[in-house]
């Protein structure tokens, strides 16, 4: 974005925030490509990027009256878009955890594949995962083993939270072992 274009966009944001309703459509049309560019850079799926950009647009207009006129409005818009990307990623991760897609992922890697290279990789990866799980406390091992084998947890517990904590600890151990 050129400095002139940035200034123009900033000016539109300030005008609209100040109460000039006529600035809405030009501002909207100018902001959409900016937000979409930010979200597209962070998300590979076009649909996800558009989804995040739409949410960012709504959040931005919802908070436009609080616009700080001394600061760069474009940077503010990009921050909102980045935050929406983060939120989208987090909710996707939560969905994956809730539906046990990690298990599918691990199983996919561990499943017998036609090529010898993939087989070796899958075996090594599976061994590495089990070794990392082995370093965790017994309670986490139980949760993760149940996840990997597809078994259900005790109904008295909160499975999602337990799984989440166990996975967090597994991530820490994984990072320590493999960087």
């Amino acid at each position, binding site marked *: 974005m050129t400095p002139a274009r940035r200034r123009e966009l900033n000016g539109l944001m300030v005008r*609209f*925030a100040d*109460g000039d309703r006529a600035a*809405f459509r030009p501002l909207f049309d100018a902001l959409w490509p900016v937000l979409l560019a930010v979200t597209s850079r962070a998300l590979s799926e076009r649909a996800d990027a558009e989804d995040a950009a739409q949410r960012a647009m709504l959040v931005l*207009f*919802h*908070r*436009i009256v609080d616009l700080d006129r001394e600061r760069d409005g474009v940077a503010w818009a990009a921050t909102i878009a980045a935050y929406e990307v983060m939120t989208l990623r987090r909710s996707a991760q939560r969905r994956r955890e809730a539906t046990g897609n990690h298990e599918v992922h691990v199983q996919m890697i561990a499943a017998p594949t036609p090529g010898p290279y993939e087989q070796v990789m899958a075996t090594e990866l599976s061994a590495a995962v089990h070794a990392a799980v082995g370093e965790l406390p017994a309670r986490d091992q139980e949760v993760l083993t149940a996840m990997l084998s597809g078994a259900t947890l005790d109904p008295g517990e909160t499975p999602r939270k337990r799984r989440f904590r166990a996975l967090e600890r597994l991530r820490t151990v994984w990072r320590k072992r493999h960087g």
Partner: protein
Amino acid sequence: MVDLDRLANKARDAAESSRIRMACRTVVAVTSFCAIAIAAGGSVVPCLCLAFALFAGTALLRWWHREGVEAVRLGLVMGAVPMLAGVVLPGCGVNCAPPGQFGEAELICVLAGIVAGAGLAVFAERKRGQWRVWFLATLVAGLTASLGCTTLGVTGLAATLLAMTVSSVAVRIPLLLRAS
């Protein structure tokens, strides 16, 4: 594919609802002023009517434009000076004069009005869209002052409002001449 027109409508609604919410926040200040005025012995019905008019006016101004936001802020602060004077005086034993007469309490309220008017002119000078801000802030300050001056009666209230307006204009003219 994103329906941009639909998204634009949603964004416009989001912006307007947020603007309305921001505008209605003035209810906190207006309610406090009204409660103080009633607690200090002001008549309930006139106080409530004035508070409603003040809330409607300030909310509309804040929703309309940023200049309205600034005018409301300035008007409420400056209007609070004569309002508090009108509220505090009866508590300090300074009683109002009989209807149609001018006593100590009215005089103090008029002085507070003069201070508020001068403040309006000076502070409006620093704002963007000075004329509109000054004019609207004076209206808001007048309504705010009226809330506290209901105990003074019509004479005291009219004198306070007149003093505020005259002093505001009197201070504004030299400021304008200096600026030009």
